[in-house]
């Protein structure tokens, strides 16, 4: 039991990491990785939703009739996303403003609905929580790493929390503005996917 628990948890961290292996959840990956801070904030919010929606859906998996399961999943996921939105508005207002419309968009993040349908509806609650946690942390790490690349190259800083950078390039650094814009996100994501494939093939 412990072994399969560890297995379900760690697969989300590397072997089945959502944006790079499952190729799910690319929209927020492109949109909120302008800085590490935004990426981490979005990742934590998504992890919260993933863990709780996986848990609830797994607990209710024998009660929800198959024909309305997607509708039920969406209600459950939307409830938790709204809770996250309210909590962020109350406790982390600046991050809430920065992430803007992408917080409600967690509802239609393919990772959340995908794990609900593929895993939580067919497995017990403890395994589902492990799966959700692993996927969520993997997603957060992906966002943070792409965010680090984009922010470092495009802005010369790395900010983890609170707006002040923990690292800044010297005054002679000319920012590579391209990386902060949308095309830079695509290119950055593509290159990271490429590297993941090369490393994975070994």
């Amino acid at each position: 039991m412990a072994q399969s628990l560890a297995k379900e948890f760690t697969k989300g961290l590397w072997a089945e990491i959502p944006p790079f292996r499952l190729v799910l959840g690319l929209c927020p990956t492109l949109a909120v990785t302008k800085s590490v801070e935004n990426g981490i904030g979005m990742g934590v919010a998504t992890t919260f939703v993933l863990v709780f929606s996986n848990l609830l859906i797994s607990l209710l998996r024998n009660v929800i009739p198959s024909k309305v399961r997607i509708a039920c999943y969406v209600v459950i996921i939307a409830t938790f996303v709204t809770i996250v939105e309210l909590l962020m508005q109350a406790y982390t207002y600046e991050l809430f403003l920065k992430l803007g419309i992408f917080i409600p968009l967690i509802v239609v993040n393919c990772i959340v609905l995908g794990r609900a349908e593929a895993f939580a509806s067919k497995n017990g609650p403890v395994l589902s929580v492990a799966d959700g946690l692993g996927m969520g942390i993997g997603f957060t790490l992906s966002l943070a790493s792409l965010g680090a690349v984009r922010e470092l190259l495009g802005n010369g800083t790395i900010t983890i929390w609170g707006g002040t950078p923990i690292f800044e390039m010297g005054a002679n650094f000319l920012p590579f503005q391209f990386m902060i814009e949308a095309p830079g996100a695509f290119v950055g994501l593509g290159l990271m996917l490429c590297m993941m494939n090369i490393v994975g093939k070994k």
Partner: protein
Amino acid sequence: MREMISMIVVLTVLTAFSGGLLAAIESGTKDRIENQVLKFQKAPAIQAIFPEATNDPLAERFTIKAEGIELQVFPTILSDGSKAVAFETKGTGFGGPVGLMMGINLDTDKIIEVRVTTHSETPGIGSRAKDNLEFVSQFSGLGMDTTFAIKSDNGDIDAMSGATVTSKGVSVAAAQAKEIYQKLKPEIVKQIK
């Protein structure tokens, strides 16, 4: 038939439970959210309008309900001793509502300053209304006899070049502020005592 009933029951119970949970969390976080909105959206505007306020306009805010209008008012006393208030109104800009905080001197009925609080305007174009003070500085010192519309609408306000819709939105917000002020001034003066 039985299948249909079970589908309806499950969905209904689920949504009812979800609605209840969300209502509870919303009322639980309501005060905190109001404080955050005040701190991040209104406070910077109020501080810019009343830089030498001797009191705390945010702490002394009060709400007026009269003539069918509900308004949150931030009072202050200016450096020359005259009383002033600030309140927020909204107009419609290019990408959504534009919030405008207006500071008015109660003794002279003249605008002290205005500041844009929130907006969803195009960065670099409509957003100039908030970031670049050139546009809003023309409101300073205007009286309540001004027509708050852009010049091409027969008003007195110069629109920002390339940002007509945003300029109109701010002007509409200002016009609304004028209307509200004229209606509620007696109430405001009463409450400030």
